[in-house]
């Protein structure tokens, strides 16, 4: 009996050792397989972000004494030019997203209808997508700027042209951003709207829904996944926009990314620029979290 159990125990422990060795080997293989993905994220995302954050609290500075401080964040909040810059960027993001969304929704819905020239329209509306935003800014500037085409035209009739660029509320900036983002939103929203079965729209019409009621009660609710994604993408992009505001905004307030650039390049104040950058990133992340909270409940109902 004892002999039998000893004989069976020996191969059992051997088997155990072999299994452990294989387990270790598999762990190495797993780690190796993960390296490209995780390594990429670490190298290009986590390390730079960490460095920006460390700099913003006075650490990891190059050629300077490192000392931990929240001072740069305090400076951001207490000095009006930085705080106003943050809210100005927030305003640009909110206003241009809201205006772009309203326009994109209506035109996306219209693009679902068959009409002559629809194919040509669907190509033409995408043109702004391939125009770089700097070029777009110059286009709009030469059209509505002081001394631009329209200003000269109305001056010809003795009227004065309202100030649409370099103004306090950044309407010129918003106009360019809207011009640029409407087609971007339309590409996403049209695709989602096109996937709504025709029968569902027909059923709504058949049950007495006017075209507007179909849009409000069926098309928009069933496109929410695309609408929310497009809104999020445009908002975050505009919130951190640099080129268009730097070209078309007034002297005060300045958009936060423009201030960052000045602090970094003109004043070599890397620590403050890093703090501003961290604030921008955190605010965008907060919007992202809010977005996921919002879509989580909805995704289960639709599709």
């Amino acid at each position, binding site marked *: 009996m004892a002999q039998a159990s000893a004989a069976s125990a020996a191969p059992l422990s051997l088997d155990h050792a072999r299994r452990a060795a294989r387990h270790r080997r598999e762990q190495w293989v797993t780690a190796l397989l993960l390296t490209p993905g995780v390594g990429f994220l670490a190298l290009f995302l986590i390390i730079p972000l960490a460095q920006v954050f460390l700099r913003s609290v006075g650490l990891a500075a190059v050629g300077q004494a490192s000392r931990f401080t929240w001072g740069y964040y305090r400076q951001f909040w207490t000095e009006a030019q930085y705080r106003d810059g943050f809210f100005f960027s927030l305003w640009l993001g909110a206003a241009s997203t809201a205006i772009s969304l309203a326009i994109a929704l209506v035109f996306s819905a219209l693009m679902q209808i068959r009409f002559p020239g629809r194919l040509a329209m669907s190509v033409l509306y995408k043109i702004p997508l391939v125009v770089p935003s700097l070029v777009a800014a110059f286009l709009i500037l030469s059209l509505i700027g002081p001394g631009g085409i329209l200003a000269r035209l109305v001056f010809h009739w003795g009227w004065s042209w309202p100030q649409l660029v370099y103004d306090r509320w950044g309407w010129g900036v918003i106009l360019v951003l809207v011009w640029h983002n409407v087609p971007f939103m339309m590409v996403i929203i049209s695709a989602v709207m096109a996937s709504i*079965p025709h*029968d*569902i729209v*027909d*059923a*709504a*019409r*058949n*049950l*007495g*829904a*006017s075209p507007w*009621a179909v849009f409000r*009660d*069926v098309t928009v*609710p*069933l496109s929410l996944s695309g609408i929310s994604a497009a809104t999020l993408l445009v908002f975050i992009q505009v919130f951190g926009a640099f080129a268009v505001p730097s070209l078309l905004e007034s002297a005060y307030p300045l958009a936060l990314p423009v201030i960052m650039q000045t602090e970094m390049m003109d004043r070599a104040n890397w620590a403050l620029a890093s703090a501003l950058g961290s604030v921008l990133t955190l605010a965008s992340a907060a919007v992202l979290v809010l977005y996921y909270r919002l879509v989580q409940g909805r995704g289960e*109902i*639709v*599709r």
Partner: protein
Amino acid sequence: MARVELRGVTKAYGPVAAVRDVHLEARDGEFLTILGPSGCGKTTTLRIIAGLLDPDAGEVLLDGRPVHHLPAHRRETAMVFQSYALFPHMTVAENVGFGLRMRRVPSAERRARVAEALEMVELGGLGGRYPRALSGGQQQRVAVARAVVTRPKVLLFDEPLSNLDAKLRERLRLELRALQQRLRITTVYVTHDQAEALVLSDRIAVMDRGRVVEIGAPQDVYRRPRARITAEFLGIANLLEATVAGARGDRYVADTPVGRLEMACAERLASGDAVTLSFRPEDIRIGAGGVNCLRGAVQQAAYLGATTDYVVRVNDALLRVQQPGEPAYRIGDTVSLVLPEAPAVIRER
């Protein structure tokens, strides 16, 4: 209650005419079925009645009043779609109440009517669910409730049972028939299922290649089809091309691929007329004696439960014959067949 009339309705998609010069009438409270193979234009016809499609030519009248210029949402028709087309983002109650909300019915009345409609289709208590949480049969009932709750003048059905399994389909078509008879709403029902058409309809309109080829009561179109496509499409038909050879009183003799047959025909036929004779498999008797007695060899025998289905070769022609009960003959057996003396005579080949 209402009367629906189509006058000379035509609709083409590009060069292809989907519907050609269709004249059709659904009488007040009638259950009219449009039956035909896929692509015959029946769904197009239904959508034209609903206003979801505009006809290229012709008129749609509701109670004698032209409505083809009205957009879909002012037509007072209610449609049940093949896909049910329930709104996935609304609960069952919101789906059923949608039409009432669009008509600005006050919310208290709306709730009562939605509850009543859901009771009627035996879905009381499921109002809070979303469509995706329901079975196919339940979704179909929601679609029916959503259509009838608005008390439309005309109910339109586009193959509403085709996505269900056979057992459920059979039960639901009886329920649909009972519901329609209770509500007496004029109904136009589109299907390619001949059994559905026979069970449900007051009258059947058979469509083929964009035209209405025949319209009549179920017994008439089944027993006395006037078009070849009707005989072929409704049930199983043995179609024999025949040439009238002569007359004896009200009886005629005709030459067919299975030999010379004697038949009675209410219509006048002339010698030399080319016609098609249609025999239903259940009307052919296996056994000897009398006129129209033929001999043939059994080629196939299939047991269907209540009946046995034989394929019998007579000369070069194959005849389908159904006899009640279990198979009594085997493949290769020679049998005598007696063909009925009153086949359906179709004046086309």
